[in-house]
């Protein structure tokens, strides 16, 4: 049914349709509206057979989910940013134990400095943990990916992170088609765990694995995640058949067939990019866009096949690995092996800085002329940073950058005299 509603609310409805049995809730901006929505759906009786637990921290949230999932319940939780880090130990644990938990990440920057706005630093920090990571382009896809996520998680016995841009998607009102319960039931069968805590067949879960077996266990986990490379497109195809629209898969291309420049991105920014691509195409520029949906497992081969014919790619990413550069870009280099593609990394939108059509247009124009540096920070206030860099060279004062910039401008904390 078509609705005009807030992204988080649409997601909450979709998750409820998946018949979760245990939901753990701990608030953190910007995912809070999702768990609030689910809380209301459970408390009002709209969703039955579901335990909704208000936990005392994100670490507790995922830990409760681990227990519930191990005991055979379909389990869900959501977090972002600081919360994801706070539960980091449990994130690795859930993956290692092969538990099909689905968790929404309302993508948000990680402090310090504290920042509540959108970027991808949080989910990127957990990319090695063994969770599947899929990114939604818009709220319709956010709805659809959650439905696919439970199916994927349970088929592989592997937890799945559904990443949705904080505020930009979670807090935006958009038109979404919420499927019916019948449609979801037809797509998502009952959870049948491969291993379950049950007195009728006791099993010990979580033993200590030593050097003699650890490598094999990890190798097999890696292979299992690679299987998602086949499974994701299959699920997407089945989803299209049953729900009538495209959602998910490994990646999506937009006007890339004859493109000499391809812009690669994850998440909602692809919408703005597509608008710029259309404007440039209208002026005869051969430019296209590619959005990566499955970041883990990383679709190396599929990316190679989609990008190889171009002259250059621009990786527009909302993540930064201090001391080296882009996160997505470095993974992407694997896909570029065997090509002579030029690759430009653009770090954009960190901490929620708006990514505008105008800025992107100027950026893509430069890219077309190969006039970009290998690493660019979009819309950087060069005056402020250059001044600070000069000062640091002269003074070498340690301390937090944000506060240092203020000291430079003369606005220091007040002193009591």
């Amino acid at each position: 049914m078509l609705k005009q509603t807030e992204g988080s609310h649409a997601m909450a409805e979709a998750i409820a349709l998946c018949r979760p049995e245990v939901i753990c809730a701990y608030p953190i901006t910007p995912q809070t509206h999702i768990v609030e929505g689910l809380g209301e759906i459970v408390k009002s009786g709209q969703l039955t057979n579901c335990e909704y637990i208000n936990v005392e921290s994100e670490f507790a949230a995922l830990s409760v989910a681990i227990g519930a999932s191990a005991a055979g319940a379909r389990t869900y939780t959501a977090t972002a940013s600081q919360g994801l880090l706070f539960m980091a130990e449990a994130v690795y644990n859930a993956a290692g134990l092969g538990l099909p938990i689905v968790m929404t990440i309302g993508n948000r920057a990680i402090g310090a400095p504290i920042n509540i706005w959108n970027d991808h630093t949080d989910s990127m920090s957990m990319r090695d943990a063994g969770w599947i990571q899929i990114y939604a382009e818009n709220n319709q896809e956010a709805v659809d990916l959650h439905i696919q996520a439970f199916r994927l998680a349970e088929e592989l016995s592997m937890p799945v992170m559904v990443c949705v841009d904080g505020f930009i998607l979670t807090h935006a009102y958009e038109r979404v088609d919420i499927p019916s319960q019948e449609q979801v039931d037809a797509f998502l069968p009952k959870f049948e765990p491969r291993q379950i805590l049950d007195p009728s067949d006791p099993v010990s879960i979580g033993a200590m694995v030593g050097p003699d077996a650890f490598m094999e266990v990890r190798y097999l986990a890696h292979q299992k995640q690679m299987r998602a490379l086949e499974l994701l497109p299959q699920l997407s195809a089945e989803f299209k058949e049953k729900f009538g629209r495209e959602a998910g898969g490994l990646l999506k291309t937009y006007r890339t067939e004859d493109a000499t420049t391809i812009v690669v991105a994850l998440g909602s920014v692809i919408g703005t990019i597509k608008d710029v691509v259309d404007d440039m195409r209208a002026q005869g520029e051969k430019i296209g866009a590619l959005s990566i949906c499955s970041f883990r497992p990383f679709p190396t081969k599929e990316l190679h096949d989609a990008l190889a014919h171009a002259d250059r790619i621009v990786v527009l990413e909302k993540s930064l690995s201090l001391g080296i550069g882009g996160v997505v870009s470095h993974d992407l280099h694997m896909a570029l092996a065997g090509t002579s593609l030029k690759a430009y990394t653009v770090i954009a939108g960190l901490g929620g800085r708006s990514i505008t059509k105008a800025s992107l247009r100027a950026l893509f124009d430069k890219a077309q002329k190969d006039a970009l540096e290998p690493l660019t920070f979009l819309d950087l206030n060069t005056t402020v940073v250059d001044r600070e860099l000069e000062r640091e060279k002269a003074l070498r004062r340690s301390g937090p950058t944000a506060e240092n910039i203020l000291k430079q401008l003369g606005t220091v904390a007040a002193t009591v005299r």
Partner: protein
Amino acid sequence: MDNKSVKQPVKFYQTGTFTVGNRLLAPDERSVQANMTRTNSLNSGHRACQGCGEALGARYAIDAAMRAANNQVIAANATGCLEVFSTPYPETSWQIPWIHSLFGNAAAVATGVAAALKVKGRKEVRVIAQGGDGGTTDIGFGCLSGMFERNDDVLYICYDNQAYMNTGVQRSSATPGAARTATTMAVGEDPGAPFGQGKNVPLIAMAHEIPYVATASVAYLHDLETKVTKAMSMRGARYIHILVPCPLGWGAASQDTIKLARLAVETGLFPLFEAEHGEVVSSYKIRRREPVEEYLKMQKRFAHLFGKQPAVETIARIQGIADKNIRKFGLLSLS
């Protein structure tokens, strides 16, 4: 639901004594451990040290819980000695469904298991969370408190050997004053762990006003089993704190585990009591009071208090703690 646990042939090494069960008692008053059909939930073959109080405490507690719950128990275990020595992959000594997740989340994992069971309508299956003092009083404290305040249907059992033993005997918030640990060495002006620190988790549990809180000791088998059985007769958040001597960490002889567990109680240093909804409802009366020296001198972790120049003031301070407990909990029948 039939019990698929294997019936182990129980070897009674001490036949002819009253140590394992008491044949003068009526059968239904005998301990679970004395019963040939006990579940041996923690089976033999694990890798605990000789004389490990925790291995004993866990077997006592879980077997009692199993009997009380008609063998329908699931356990969530924190990282620590118990977890490590009981599940060296690919082997396990647990005969019950058991999960180990992380160090600090046993209570939360148990909450999750209980929630799943509730959703599936499996009321008869009971959940136990267990961990050592480190995993309970320190790193697991947040999740423990959360489980308490939500009154989740979980029995949490803490096996307290008063330090982080599995990692080499480091101080925890359960380490008593003056005790030597690897991070509170018996050197300098103030040897051993400082006084004036530490947490009394049973009292904190009581402050949450949960349905049941009890302390127990591996030297008092019947008392321990009774308390576990009582806890299993209730629903909601319950907490049992069991003193389990660690021969290695305490520097004691491995055959002294039970004796130490008894002396801790008979000195008054480890009061045995029960509380319901925040109020003490019973306490074990000390049979024959012992001065704390009798207990301390058996442990090398307190060796620096004795010798040529005994630390009279420190010992007096420890005695003061025992005296306070006796007063506070009414541990002597005449008081």
